[in-house]
C-alpha cells in the first residue's frame, strides 16, 4: 500500500525544503555570532536542530496518516487548536507586548502557528462536503464563519501577521473549490472596505509600525530604525553580497530581530541579489510542485488542502521578504524554514509533510 504511494512521493519538494533549512542554519550562525552576553550562536543552532528533530517526528506522523483521515478529524483538530489559542490568551507568556507563547516544560510554543494548518484542514473538510452546491452563497458564509474565531483570537493576541496570512489562504481555497469568481472578488472588495474599521482595534505599536511603513523617518530612533537598517543591509549587499559573516549591518549590531523576523536582511546583505534570488527560486520550486499536486488531484479535499498550504507558504515568504525590503509594512511574519524559532520551523515542516501526503495519495482515475 505505502509502497505504491511512495512512487508518487515528490522528492523535489523535500530536497528544496532541506536546502532552505540548511541555508537557514548557516544564517542563524551568522546573525547570532555578534550577540554578546546572552547566548552563543552554537546554542541557537543547537536549539534549532532540536526543533528540527521535533518537527520531523510530528511531520512523519502527519505524513503517514492518509490525509482523508485527517480531513475526517479536521473539525476536532481545528477546535482543539482554537481552544489552546484561547487558553494562551489567559495563561500565555507576554513577549514584545503580545501574548503568543505557551510554556510546556522547557519548550514554549506559539499556538497561532498551528492554527494555520488546522484551519486549512477544517476549511477543506467544509468545502469538500459542499461539493454539490459549492456555488451557493452559504459556502462563502460558512467559510467566513470558520475563519471568524481563529481570526478574532489571533488579532486580539495580537498577531496581525498570522491573521493576515490566513485570509489569502481562505480566498484561494474557496476560489479553487469553485465558488463564483465574482463572489470572491466581492468578498475581497468588502474586506478592503471594512479594514479601516479595524484600525481602532490595533495596538499603539502596530499603528506605529504601519505609519512608519509609510514614512520610516517618522521615528528614526524607534520603530522606523529597524526598517531603515534592514533596507541598508539588503541594499548594501548589492549583486554578490559582502560574504558570509562579513555583513557590517548585522555583525555590528545595527539590525534588530535579525535572527527571527529579519533574518532575510542578513541573507540579502551577505549573499547579495544573487543569493536572494537563489533562495526565492528554492521556495518557488516548492510552491510550483505544490500547485502541481493540487492540479493532478481529482479529489476536491486534497486539491483544496494543497492550494491552502501553497498559499500559506507563498504569502508568508512574500510578506516576510516584502517587509524586510520596505515594500510591505512590518507585521511580524516569520520566513519559513529560516527564521529562528521552534513553532515556525515545526509548522513549516508540517506544511510540507501534509503537502507531500496529499501528493502521494492523490486519487487518479
Amino acid at each position: 500500500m505505502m509502497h505504491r504511494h511512495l512512487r508518487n512521493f515528490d522528492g523535489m519538494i523535500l530536497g528544496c525544503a532541506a536546502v532552505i533549512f540548511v541555508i537557514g542554519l548557516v544564517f542563524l550562525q551568522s546573525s547570532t555570532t555578534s550577540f554578546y552576553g546572552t547566548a552563543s550562536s552554537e546554542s541557537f543552532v543547537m536549539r534549532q536542530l532540536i526543533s528540527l528533530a521535533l518537527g520531523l517526528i510530528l511531520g512523519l506522523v502527519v505524513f503517514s496518516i492518509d490525509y482523508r483521515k485527517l480531513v475526517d478529524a479536521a473539525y476536532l483538530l481545528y477546535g482543539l487548536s482554537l481552544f489552546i489559542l484561547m487558553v494562551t490568551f489567559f495563561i500565555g507568556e507576554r513577549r514584545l507586548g503580545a501574548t503568543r507563547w505557551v510554556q510546556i516544560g522547557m519548550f514554549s510554543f506559539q499556538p497561532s502557528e498551528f492554527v494555520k494548518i488546522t484551519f486549512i484542514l477544517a476549511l477543506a473538510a467544509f468545502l469538500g462536503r459542499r461539493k454539490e452546491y459549492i456555488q451557493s452563497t452559504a459556502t462563502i458564509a460558512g467559510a467566513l464563519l470558520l475563519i471568524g474565531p481563529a481570526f478574532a483570537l489571533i488579532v486580539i493576541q495580537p498577531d496581525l501577521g498570522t491573521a493576515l496570512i490566513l485570509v489569502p489562504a481562505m480566498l484561494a481555497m474557496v476560489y479553487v473549490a469553485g465558488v463564483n469568481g465574482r463572489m470572491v472578488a466581492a468578498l475581497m472588495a468588502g474586506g478592503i472596505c471594512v479594514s479601516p474599521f479595524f484600525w481602532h482595534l490595533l495596538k499603539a505599536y502596530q499603528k506605529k509600525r504601519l505609519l512608519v511603513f509609510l514614512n520610516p523617518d517618522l521615528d528614526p530612533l524607534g520603530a522606523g530604525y529597524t526598517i531603515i537598517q534592514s533596507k541598508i543591509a539588503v541594499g548594501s549587499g548589492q549583486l554578490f553580497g559582502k560574504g558570509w559573516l562579513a555583513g557590517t549591518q548585522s555583525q555590528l549590531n545595527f539590525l534588530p530581530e535579525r535572527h527571527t523576523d529579519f533574518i532575510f536582511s542578513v541573507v540579502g546583505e551577505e549573499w547579495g541579489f544573487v543569493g536572494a534570488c537563489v533562495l526565492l527560486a528554492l521556495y518557488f520550486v516548492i510552491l510550483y510542485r505544490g500547485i502541481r499536486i493540487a492540479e493532478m488531484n481529482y479529489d476536491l479535499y486534497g486539491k483544496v488542502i494543497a492550494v491552502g498550504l501553497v498559499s500559506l507558504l507563498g504569502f508568508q515568504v512574500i510578506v516576510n521578504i516584502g517587509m524586510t525590503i520596505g515594500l510591505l509594512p512590518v507585521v511580524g511574519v516569520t520566513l519559513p524554514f529560516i527564521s529562528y524559532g521552534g513553532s515556525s520551523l515545526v509548522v513549516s515542516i508540517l506544511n510540507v509533510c501534509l503537502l507531500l501526503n496529499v501528493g502521494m495519495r492523490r486519487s487518479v482515475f
Partner: protein
Amino acid sequence: MNRTEFFFKIIAAGFCFLVAGLFYLQVIRGPYYRARSEDNRIVVIPIAAPRGEILDRKGRIIVDNRIAFDVCVIYKDAGDFRRLVSFLSATLKKDARKLSARLEKARGQPYTPTVLVEDISRDEAILLEQRRIDYPALRISTRPLRSYPYKEETATVTGYLGKINDRELSRFKSYGFTARDRVGRGGLEKQYDDYLRGVEGGMQVETDSRGRQKRILYVQPTEPGKSLRITVDLDLQRFCYEAMEGKDGVVIVMNPATGAIYAFVSKPGFDPNLFVKSGTQGAVKGLLRNDSRKYQLVDRAISGVYPPGSVFKAVVAMAGLETDRIDTSLAFTCNGVFHFGSAVFHCWKEGGHGVQTLLQALQHSCDIYFYNAGLRIGATAIAQYADRFGFGRLTGIDLPSEGYGLVPSPQWKRTAKKEAWFEGETVNYAIGQGYLLVTPIQVIRMMNAFANGGYLVKPYFVEEIGDVTFATHSLKKIDVSLKNLATVTKGLVKVVNEEGGTGARARLDGITVAGKTGTAQTSRDKTHGWFSGFAPAENPTISVLVFIEYGGTGGEASVLAGKILRKSAEVGLL
C-alpha cells in the same frame, strides 16, 4: 483558464514583485546603500538626564549631581594594546590585567566607545585628554552622577539609589526606563522617584567605519528631573547628627502645628554615595545583606518599633482625665514598691516619691502613681486613647516603609493571642511597657497634639516640587478636651522646669520647654532613652524627639534635646 493556475499566477506575481524590489534595492540603489552602510554607520548615543536636586528650606543643596569622567576606548583604533594598557595602568594606578580583560570585551563592538575605567578625577581626565594625540583610541566621556555631599548626615532623609532590576525593567520599559537607570530605593529618592527622575535623551550620530562622528542626524533633548525643596534645615540636621555621636537612635525636630520636619536623623546610618560610585560593590552588598547586624538601611524613626516607656504616661494621664477616672486632686502614696496579687512592681526610684498627685507624678515620672491610675482607668480605655493619639496607625509621612507599631487591648489579646488579658498587664501598660510598640515619629506626633491644641498632624518633608507648592498641611482633631490637654501640659512643663523633674536637663534660659522623658526596659539589659517635648510651652513653634536605642536613659535624651533646642533657636526656628 484553470482556477488553480490562475491562483498560482498570483503567487508568481508576488515573487516577481519581490525580485523586482530586490533588484531595485540591491542592484540599482545598491551603491547608495553600500555607501550608507560603509561610511555612515549610525549609532544612537544616549544622553543621561540629571536627576532633580534636593534643597533644604533655605535653598541650600542637600543632594545634587556632579560630573563623572569615564575613560572609554574605541577598539578599532586601539593599535598597540599593550602600550595603551600600560599607559592607562600607570596613569590611573589600575590593575593592568583587569584593563586588558575589559578591553577584550570591547571587541564585540569595535566601533562604539566602550567604558574602561569609570569615574576618574578631573585632573586625570585633563591629563588623558592631553595625551589623546598619542593614543587616538581614548575618549573621555562625561555623565551626571548623584552626589550626597553630607553623606551619613542627611542619608535618613535622602535615601539612596539602586540599579534597576530585571523585573522593574520589563514592567517599566514602556515608560522610558533603560538598563542603565538607577531608581530610588529609600527615603525621598524612592518616595519622589517619579518627579526626581529625568527623561533620557539621545543622539543619532552617523559615524564612519573608524568610529569618528561625522554628523549628528537627530537629537532628542534630555529633560532634567524636578528638584525638591524640603522643610529640613541643613545646619540643624547636621548638628543633630553630630549630637548623636557615639550613640544609635533617632532625632526628629519639627513644627508641631504644620507637620514640617526640620531635622530627621536615624543612626547608625550609611553613606548613600556608596550606591552610585564605582568600585564600592562590596560595601553596598554588605549594607544590603546587613553584614554588620546593625540594620543601617532601616530608618528607625519610622520603621523601628519600640516600647515607649514613660513618655506614654502623657497618654495614660489623658485617658484618665477624659474618662473621669482620675482627677488632679487624686493622690497615691509611693514607697517604691507596688504589690499586685503575688507580683511586685517597683518604682524607678528606690524608696519612693511619697504622696503624689497627677502633676507631681508626671514631673517625677512616678511609676507607682501610674500603676494605681492604670488599674482605675483600665486597659481598654488606655488603648482607646493611645489610638486617638495616633499610635498603631501610620502617620502618613512622605517616606517609604513606615511601620504601624502595636496598641494592645484586651480585645486584641483575645483575637491575636487567644488568651485573656491579665490585670497585671494593665499595670505595665500604664508605664508604656508590655506589648505596646511605637515608632519615634508616632511619639513626636502625640507630643505635637499637646503643643497644637489637640490635633494630629501629618509629618512631611516636601514643600515644593519644581516651582510648584506641593505641601498640604493635614490636621485631624483628636476628640479630647482642651482643659485636660492644658492640665497634662502643665505636668509636662514641670518635668523640665521644676526641681526634681526628670527632664530638667532640657531646660533653656528664657524659654519654657515642656516634655516627657522615658527610660524603656528592653529584652536586653540595656534601656532605651526617650525625650519628647516642645517649646515655647505657651505658644509652641517647635517640637523635638530624641531616642537613644539600647544604652540610654531619659535623662541623657533630655540633655541632647536641650542642646538641639538651643541650636534650633540659633538657626531661627525657635
